[in-house]
C-alpha cells in the first residue's frame, strides 16, 4: 500500500510557515528589547509606538517562543540522528525490512513528539502573540492613525534623511527563509546604525512587526486546527511503519530555519550610488 499520498502538501508548508513565524517572533522580540534600550538613551521620541506595555508583551512572547524553540531543537536533533541512521541503513526502497520498519516507527514517534510539543506550547504562544499584536494595534491606531495626517506621516518617515543619501537598511518584510544568524546580523546592523533611532524607523518597524504578528496569529490558529489531524494521520502511519516524504520535508524545513542551512534567495545588487553633488534647494520646496 502506498502511504505517500496521505498528507497534503499544504500541511507541510503550514508547519514550515509556522516554524518560520516562530523564529520571527523571537527575533522581533529581541530586537525590540535592544531598540527600546537604545531609544531610552536617545532624545524623547515624539511618537510613542513602543511603550513599556508593548515591550513587556514582546518580552513575554520572546520567552514563550524561546521555550518552544528549545523544545523543538531537541526533538529535531533526535529526528536528524534517526533519519541519518535510516539512510545509512539503506532503508530507502527496503521498507518491508523489519529493521527498517522499526526505525521508521521510531522516526514517526519522534515526529509525533514534535507535534506534541507544538500542541502543548501553542496556546501560550497564541496568547502572547495576540497580546503583542493588540498592544501594537492600539499604539499604531493612536499614534499614526489618529494623531497624524498622511502628510505628517510622510514627514515622519522621511525624517532627517531627506537631505542625505540613504544608507541601505534591510527590508523587513518577507524574511521567511533567511538564515537565523543573518536575520540577527541585520537586526544588529539596524540597531547599531541608528544610535539616534528616530521615529521614521520606529514607524516602519512597528508596522512590520504588527503585520507579521497578524500573520503569525493566523498561522498559529491554523496550525492548532491541523495538529490533531496530522497527529491522527501519523498514528496511522505508525501502525504501517512507514515514513512519508512530507514528514521528512517538514523536519528539513524546520531544521533549516533553526540551524540556518537554508539557501536563501539570491540578493540583488542595490541601485548605483546617486549624484552626490550639492543638491539644489528650491524656494518652492515643501
Amino acid at each position, binding site marked *: 500500500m502506498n502511504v505517500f499520498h496521505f498528507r497534503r502538501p499544504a500541511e507541510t508548508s503550514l508547519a514550515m510557515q509556522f516554524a518560520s513565524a516562530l523564529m520571527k517572533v523571537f527575533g522581533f522580540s529581541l530586537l525590540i528589547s535592544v531598540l527600546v534600550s537604545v531609544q531610552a538613551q536617545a532624545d524623547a521620541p515624539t511618537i510613542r509606538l513602543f511603550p513599556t506595555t508593548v515591550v513587556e508583551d514582546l518580552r513575554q512572547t520572546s520567552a514563550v517562543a524561546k521555550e518552544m524553540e528549545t523544545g523543538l531543537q531537541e526533538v529535531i536533533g533526535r529526528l536528524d540522528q534517526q533519519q541519518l541512521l535510516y539512510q545509512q541503513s539503506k532503508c530507502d526502497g527496503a521498507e518491508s525490512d523489519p529493521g527498517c520498519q522499526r526505525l521508521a516507527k521510531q522516526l514517526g514517534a519522534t515526529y509525533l513528539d514534535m507535534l506534541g510539543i507544538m500542541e502543548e506550547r501553542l496556546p501560550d504562544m497564541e496568547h502572547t502573540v495576540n497580546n503583542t499584536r493588540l498592544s*501594537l*494595534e*492600539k499604539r*499604531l*491606531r493612536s499614534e*499614526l*492613525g*489618529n*494623531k*497624524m*495626517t*498622511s*502628510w505628517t*506621516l*510622510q*514627514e515622519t*518617515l*522621511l525624517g532627517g*534623511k*531627506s537631505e542625505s*543619501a*540613504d544608507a541601505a537598511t534591510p*527590508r*523587513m*518584510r518577507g524574511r521567511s527563509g533567511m538564515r537565523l544568524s543573518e536575520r540577527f546580523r541585520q537586526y544588529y546592523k539596524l540597531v547599531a546604525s541608528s544610535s539616534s533611532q528616530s521615529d*521614521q524607523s520606529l*514607524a*516602519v518597524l*512597528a*508596522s*512590520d512587526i*504588527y*503585520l507579521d504578528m*497578524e500573520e503569525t496569529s493566523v498561522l498559529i490558529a491554523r496550525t492548532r486546527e491541523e495538529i490533531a489531524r496530522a497527529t491522527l494521520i501519523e498514528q496511522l502511519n505508525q501502525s504501517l511503519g512507514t515514513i512519508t516524504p512530507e514528514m521528512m520535508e517538514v523536519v528539513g524545513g524546520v531544521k533549516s530555519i533553526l540551524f540556518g542551512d537554508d539557501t536563501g534567495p539570491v540578493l540583488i545588487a542595490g*541601485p*548605483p*550610488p*546617486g*549624484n*552626490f*553633488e550639492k*543638491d*539644489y534647494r*528650491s*524656494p*518652492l*520646496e*515643501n
Partner: protein
Amino acid sequence: MILFKSTAGVLLSVIASGLILSSCASSPPPCDGPQTKLLSAAMSDVRNSLTSGCTAYFDSYYDDLLTIAEGDPKPENKRLFSEFLVWSSDEGILNQRQARDYYNRYFNVKFVSLQSDYNNCSHTCPRRDRVMLDMERELTDKERGLMKISRDSSGYYRADKLYQEMELVLEATCTACAAGR
C-alpha cells in the same frame, strides 16, 4: 478732380489699414510651443507666449519644457525649473500653491499627493487604494524630474523607498484603524 481722387485714395488706404489693424487685435496669438531644444531659450519662448495671453497652455508648455530638459539632463535643470515657476507665480500665471505643486511633483522627494488636513484613520484609510495609486503616478513623474532631468538618482531612490515605506505603514495603520471600529 485730381484732388478728389487723391483724397479718396488716402481715405481708402486709412480704412484698409484700420481694418487690418483691427483684425490683428482680435485674432488669438499662435501659442505655439517652444521651437528650440535649448532649455533656457525654450523657457524664454514660453515666457513670451505666456505673457502674450497663452496662459491656458501652461500645462502643455510645462510638459514641452520637461521633454526638452530630458534631452540634456543635468543637476542645474532643477534650478531653471524652479526659477521658471517662481516667475510664473510672480506674474500671476500660477498661484503659490500651484507653483509649489508643479515643482515638488517632479523635483522633490516628498509626495504632493499626500497633502491632507485630516487624520489617517478617518481620511486616508478609506481611500488608501486611491492614495497609493496617486503616489505611484507621482513616483513616475519624480523619476522623470529627478532621474531623467536632474540626474538626481539618489533623490529618486529616496522617493521610491518612501513610497514603499508608506505602503507598509499605511497597511499596518489602516488595519489597526479598522480593528478599532
